[in-house]
């Protein structure tokens, strides 16, 4: 399979503390990959290095064979990296539909000023239709005209997913999507995500605490501990791996 995301030998230190030490992570096209590890393992640091929020001290990140180097966050996004946030980040004072329209509008860059001034910067009916389709996919059609502030956390997270989907990502990075959600909500989110992923066939990198979600959703899993990659392989196998259990899962019963 074609390698989509290739993060090679990433090293990152914060004032002497090695947050990531020589970590290599690959995601193939259309693949669902999990990234787990105990608190402070460096998951978020790795995530930020991939997305461009942090510069790694050493190592390289490439997407579909293009080295991302020191490319800023927004250019990476335009190259096909979508993401959601652990603490949801939404644009206030908009409706759900407007949210997706913003993403749809900027899909091909910020938009030219002269087009705005000539009145050609308004969303076209085609764009509105596309956003409607994404809303349908997420099951948010009923909420389209609701103000964003009135949504529940779970719905907000779906809007985030939708916002990322509208940009047509090839890789969706999910940052602890289950945080703040209860079991039922998490399961609902997982099944919606799985459905959309089957339809759109983008790759997913899931950073997650919730082992059940990882087990249910991903095919392959990387396990980080203290900045080191201690194991990677098919998710089921990882859950049974002694090192992983030792480092992270303890004697938790997983997999049912």
């Amino acid at each position, binding site marked *: 399979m074609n390698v989509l995301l290739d993060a090679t030998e990433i090293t990152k230190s914060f004032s002497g503390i090695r947050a990531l030490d020589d970590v290599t992570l690959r995601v193939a096209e259309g693949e669902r990959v999990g990234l787990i590890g105990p608190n402070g393992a460096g998951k978020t640091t790795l995530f930020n290095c991939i997305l461009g929020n942090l510069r790694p001290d050493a190592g390289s990140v490439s997407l579909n064979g293009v080295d991302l180097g020191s490319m800023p966050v927004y250019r990476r996004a*335009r190259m096909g990296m979508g993401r959601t946030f652990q603490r949801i980040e939404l644009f206030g004072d908009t409706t759900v539909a407007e949210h997706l329209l913003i993403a749809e509008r900027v899909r091909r860059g910020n938009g030219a*000023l002269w087009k705005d001034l000539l009145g050609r910067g308004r969303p076209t009916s085609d764009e509105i239709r596309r956003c409607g389709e994404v809303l349908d996919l997420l099951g948010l059609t009923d909420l389209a005209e609701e103000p964003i502030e009135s949504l529940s956390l779970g719905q907000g997270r779906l809007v985030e997913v939708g916002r990322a989907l509208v940009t047509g990502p090839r890789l969706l990075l999910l940052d602890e999507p289950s945080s703040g959600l209860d079991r039922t909500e998490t399961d609902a989110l997982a099944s919606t995500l799985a459905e959309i992923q089957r339809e759109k066939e983008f790759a997913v990198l899931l950073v997650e605490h919730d082992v059940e979600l990882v087990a249910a959703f991903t095919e392959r899993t990387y396990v980080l501990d203290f900045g080191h990659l201690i194991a990677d392989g098919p998710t089921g196998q990882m859950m049974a791996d002694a090192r992983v259990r030792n480092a992270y899962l303890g004697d938790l019963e997983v997999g049912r």
Partner: protein
Amino acid sequence: MFLAASTGEDLLRAVLQGAPPGSVYALIALGFVLTYKTSGVFNLAFGAQAYVSAAMYFQARTEWGWQVVPALILAVFILAPLIGLVLERLIFRYLSNSSAVAKLVVAIGLTVALPSLFELVTGFSAVAGRTPTGIIPGGSSVFYDPFGIYPISRDELAQMAVAMVGMAALGALFRFSSLGLALRAVVESPRMTELSGINADRVSAFAWALSSLFAGMAGVLIAPRFNTLMAPDFFHLVIVAIAAAAIGRLASLPGALLGGLGLGIFIAIFNTFLPRWTADHGWLRPFQENLTPSMPFVILFGVLVCWPAIRRERRVVDPLGGVDPPPPGLAASTRNRRLTLAIRVFSVAFLCVVGATILLRADVRWLFLVTQAVILAIIYLSITVITGFAGQISLCQGAFAAVGAFTVFQLADRYDLSVLAAALVGAGLAAVVGALLSLPVLRLGGVWLAIATLAFAFFFDAVMVKFSWIGGGGTSLFQGTRVPRPTIGPWDFADDRLFLVLAVVAFTVVSFLVIQLREGTTGRVLHALRGSEMAAESIGISPVRARVTAFAVSAAIAGFGGALLAIHQENVNYQNNFSPTAALFWLVLVVSLSARTIEGAAYSGAAFSLFDSLVLRGEVFRWIFRGWVPGILPISPKWRFVLFGLASIHFSRHPEGLVEYGKRRATRRFNERFDSRERERAIQETSP
């Protein structure tokens, strides 16, 4: 050898010269850090507070003939802390949850309001040429010269001595008293302090009183350096203090102290050595001559842009989203259709009647005022774009407008270009200036961005305007910066009525473009950035590009408006129209009324231009009541500054602005009444 000796001597002289003002800067910087850390307020109003104390002292000493000690007690030890306490108790305590930028706007409003309020209450007015006296007799006439190189006046010695005593007292307070301990704790973390059972509000009130006392003391001490007591001079003082405080990252008191002292000495050294250096580089001379008085702003700008510590402190700040819960949508979106229609019809009819009345009946003065209101409204649309849409506070809109105005003046004067074409060129130039300025300052964000633009505005004022290729140089002092009125085909816009029509057309066109911007991609992108910069970036929005665009568009609008204003007045009138302090008032006005709507800009223009004549002089009552005017009118036009300055307090609680606030309330009331009537009818119909 000779050269080295003289350089060393000069250096020492500069140090001696710079230390006294430096210690005053340090005093203010200390107060500045103290309030910032205890209440999160970036108190620009310290300049105004220093002015009030200095003026009170002057009034008591010179007008009332008081002795030094009672005058000092009144001005510094009673009035100054009192003002601080009142501000804390009545205003800033309620803002503790507002965003830093909202607090900044209130402080700017106070900067505008306090001096005018003081002058109104006490009847004080600055008399040109009456130099304020210091706190010891013979302060400016007795000199000591211990090293034989620089005679230090008694006033300067007093400045240093008082500053030292003040700092020592503060140090002792911090070290040895339990209150000092509480203060230090609140400075570190107000929340933690509250958890350990200390009333942070009380401590913060004390900090306000103390820092205001420092500001008042600094004002009285520095006053003898000025020939005439004027509020803007004291505003400069606070600029240096901000630079000093910024060096210590606004966090450390010793840092602020050393920063203040260091800046005083640095400025003196700079002023000693720069002229010599430029003597060898002739082309730099005009620059140097103007740079000397504006050193504070250059330093502040330099510190902000180059000091890495500040950049690291960057946060995403949204002046309109800082309150909790987030601001609801515009009132128009909650109205029902019938009401919207009724309001539209009524306002169009009203505008037509007003317009027709003005065009047919108004005399020269009213035509002038109304035209000015319309043109100012265009300039205020630039604030709508940068503050209302992009959520950035820019305090240099006056400079952008001046760029437009001076461009028209220069092009018409030198190349005889049509003024309307020149206005468009001016808008373009202003856009370029805005874009260039935004590149270094955008990285700062929030409060620091506002302060950096303020520094730029003062720099422009002190240095750029003096160049003959911008402000017309020396000749303009005599001839003024004259600008002709345009003629298009058969229309000669020297006719005031015709020019009013032109202004209205221009306003309509600019408003239309601004609405297009808001509804288009740029508006959506800016909205997204204001909501969450991280999320905006994650969908491919380039924050820098979007904000540079916003700055450029805003500057272009301001430049165009400024050009029109110059054409209208047939003169640039820089000092009256575009000075940095006037532009501060613009911002306060627009955000207090409504920064997000076209209407807000229109109301602000009307308020700036017409409020004085209509309300303060009572004309509107004269029309309505056929000659009768309430007994208290007419009152001083200074009330305009006081009222709108204080209106900014309302802004901090209702960031949508007065206009939107009023509309929202009216709409809600109407909806409630309307709904309840509908419901009653429904009940009556269903009941048998």
